[in-house]
């Protein structure tokens, strides 16, 4: 039975067309994957269904009736709920309080906390979730927070659950558990829509898959008729091979570019070391990878490299120059190239134009005698945009760009600097395969041209595909330094990352 019928939905943001006349049927009780590259219009389409955006043209009918969804509350009343990519939970409240927010149970004038806890706990048990109704959101892991988000929808008795890239933040076992939950919900007759760009997930969970390409529906297929080659050729037009391993044995002979000498960072007023006597040398023409589980100091290493965090002990030397505790400003003056892991608020300013975002590192050049040289800055920004094929125009607001295009713009700006070394932190996090491959190719080309690259990543595939050497960071110190040769694989790295952690506990 067709539950929802989207009829030629079109939505544009300024000049960018996010959805172009998309017609799609969603059936009761199915798991539908909406797949596509970054910026293909997946999220926008679902936000329209959820009532968060109004389409420029086209209509939605729900159980045969048109025009019911005019606002977010209309969609909610029909039982359409959405879990956003970034969680929307009140972290100081409990799971039950979050789930019941907006439709609290009352006893007289007061909230009936006990009844709410009981009701939420009943849903938790029914779905086989691992969280407790009375736990604080703050105390939950990412996977558990997601359970709390889904719980919110179930508490409000949603019939249609939309999940926007739910696995982006999950580990493999958490993903498997999520999929079990989704199957169980499907068995209860819920309709589930999953936004994703991971092909193996599409194949593992969905009944049908709708493929979007540049805002258009490229087709709606039954997953049973699909395999990974067919799916990837539909998504990207070409079949992608798995990346070849890096081979660059001469790296060691080359001269050092960045030296960390016994670097320590302490937590304020405490003896705990966040970075524990960190020493390494980065040479020109190599990619040195840092792999770590979250919470083992990789974020602090990034902050030190970016000039955000002063170090307590040790020295940092770049090409004979002592750059210990240089501020971001001084690092920029020597031409720092740094692609930060937090691309939305550190790497870019969402409320400024693309041009304003691109000129920040070179701004002196574009304000001769303090006044903006409009022509030169526009030309600079246009040339970066075309060189890195960012799908945007200089005067567009940064926030109107998709995640992948924002990252391309950041990359364009950072690589236009010519500092002695380049820092990449989680450069492909959340990006689709095509953008990821493009960034990897660029990094390899930079390495081959003799640049020194530091890659901080939690993605082992990425580490293994690119690095010449891999340092595993555990509790703020280098647990082991591997040469990335044929014998190294994800299992060895993974157990090194985990192993010592378990030992210490």
């Amino acid at each position: 039975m067709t539950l929802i019928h989207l009829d030629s939905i079109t939505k544009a943001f300024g000049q960018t067309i996010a959805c172009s006349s998309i017609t799609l049927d969603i059936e009761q009780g199915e798991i539908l994957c909406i797949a596509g590259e970054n910026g293909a219009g997946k999220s926008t389409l679902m936000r329209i269904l959820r009532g968060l955006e109004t389409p420029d043209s086209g209509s939605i009918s729900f159980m045969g009736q048109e025009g019911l969804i005019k606002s977010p509350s209309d969609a909610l009343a029909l039982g359409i709920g959405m879990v956003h990519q970034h969680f929307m939970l009140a972290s100081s409240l409990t799971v039950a309080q979050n789930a019941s927010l907006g439709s609290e149970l009352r006893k007289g004038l007061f909230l009936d906390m006990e009844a709410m806890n009981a009701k939420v706990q009943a849903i938790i048990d029914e779905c086989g979730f691992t969280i407790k109704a009375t736990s604080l959101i703050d105390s939950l892991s990412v996977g558990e927070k997601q359970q709390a988000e889904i719980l919110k929808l179930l508490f409000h008795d949603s019939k249609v659950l939309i999940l926007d890239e739910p696995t982006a933040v999950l580990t493999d076992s958490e993903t498997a558990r999520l999929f079990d939950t989704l199957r169980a919900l499907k068995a209860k007759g819920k309709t589930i829509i999953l936004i994703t760009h991971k092909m193996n997930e599409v194949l593992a969970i969905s009944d049908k898959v709708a493929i979007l390409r540049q805002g258009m529906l490229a087709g709606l297929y039954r997953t049973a008729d699909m395999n990974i080659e067919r799916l990837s050729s539909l998504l990207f037009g070409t079949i992608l091979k798995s990346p070849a391993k890096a081979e660059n044995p001469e790296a060691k002979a080359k001269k050092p570019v960045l030296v960390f000498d016994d670097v320590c960072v302490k937590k304020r007023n405490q003896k705990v070391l966040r970075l524990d006597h960190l020493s390494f040398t980065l040479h020109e023409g190599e990619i040195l990878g840092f792999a770590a589980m979250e919470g083992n100091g990789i974020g602090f290493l990034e902050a030190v490299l970016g000039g955000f965090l002063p170090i307590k002990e040790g020295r940092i030397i770049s090409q004979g120059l002592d750059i210990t505790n240089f501020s971001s400003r001084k690092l920029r003056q020597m031409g720092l190239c740094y692609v930060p892991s937090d691309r939305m608020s550190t790497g870019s300013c969402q409320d400024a134009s693309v041009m304003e975002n691109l000129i920040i590192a070179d701004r002196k050049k574009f304000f001769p005698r303090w006044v903006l040289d409009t022509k030169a800055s526009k030309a600079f920004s246009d040339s970066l945009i075309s060189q890195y094929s960012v799908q945007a125009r200089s005067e567009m607001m940064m926030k109107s760009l998709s995640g992948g295009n924002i990252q391309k713009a950041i990359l364009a700006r950072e690589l236009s600097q010519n500092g002695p070394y380049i820092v990449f932190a989680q450069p492909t996090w959340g990006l689709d395969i095509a953008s990821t491959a493009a960034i990897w190719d660029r990094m390899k080309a930079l390495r081959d041209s003799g640049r020194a690259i530091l890659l901080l990543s939690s993605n082992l595939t990425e580490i293994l595909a690119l690095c010449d050497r891999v340092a595993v960071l555990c509790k703020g110190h280098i647990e082991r330094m591997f040469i990335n040769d044929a014998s190294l694989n994800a299992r060895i790295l993974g157990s090194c990352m985990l192993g010592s952690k378990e030992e210490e506990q």
Partner: protein
Amino acid sequence: MILFSLALLLCLCLLFSPTPMKSFSSFVLGPFESLYFLGNLLNSATPLLIGSLGMCISLQGGSFNLGGEGQIYLGGFLCAILSIGLSSLGAFGAVLAVLISILAAAIVAGLSGLFKSLWKTSELISSYLISNALILIVNYLVTGPFQDPSTNLFSTQKIPQAFRLSKILLPSDLSSALLIALALCLLSWLLLYKTKQGYEFRLYGSNPRFCQYGGISPSFCQIAPMVISGGFYGLAGSLSVLGTYYSCVKEFSSQMGFNALAIALIARKHPILALPASLFFAWLSSGSRIAMQRTDVTVEMALIVQAAVFLLVTCTFAFKRKKSL
């Protein structure tokens, strides 16, 4: 929006006034009936415009200078006593007096910015507290050591004739300060949108972390916008003295700082929009003054009308802003 606020005004007049039509028309049209009223409207808009321009710059730079009252008062007071002291220097003395007033107010506001960059104190609170202390100190000076002995008024001596700004629309009080304000309006726009500093302020205001990452000095962006808005307030105060009051009257700056802030917010921090916003504000206050003089409209009623219309305008702009996002 304007029609709606007029309708609201009419309703209030009908409710509270025995002669509603007369009250209504003097409220709305009063300010435009004669050159005298029109000139006074423009004159009262002048310091508000200057102050709000400074606030536009500071708000865009992410700093909230809540000390406008004290900074205007300090600027006006210094300008008044310096004008008397420097009267022998002629025109040069006047310029010097204004510059020192600007500098003093800028330093006072800059202190809050400095504290913010050193100790992460909230500039909103520190500037407000400093300003309150300043008001009391200047009150003491105006009513004590510097009070004009020849009158019983709480004010300083009159400044010399040569220092007074020329009137440009007699018989009203409108002085050439308006021209300075208009020029500043354009300059503020250029500063914010065409210069390197303006670019840094705007980026810092919308994302400080990105600025630090990009190599912009955070302390510069915390202090400079405060200094600039303090300077604008100081100028607003000294031009009020040179152009309108000719002496520092006790608490002449009352509500000016807050009104300038409100105007900057209505103008959505845009210096060019601050011009219509300050004119609107001045129209509202002079309209209510005229209505009070001519009809039985009471002070309270006039204030209620002002507040209601103001609230309405703010809401309208706030909603528009939400839609455009």
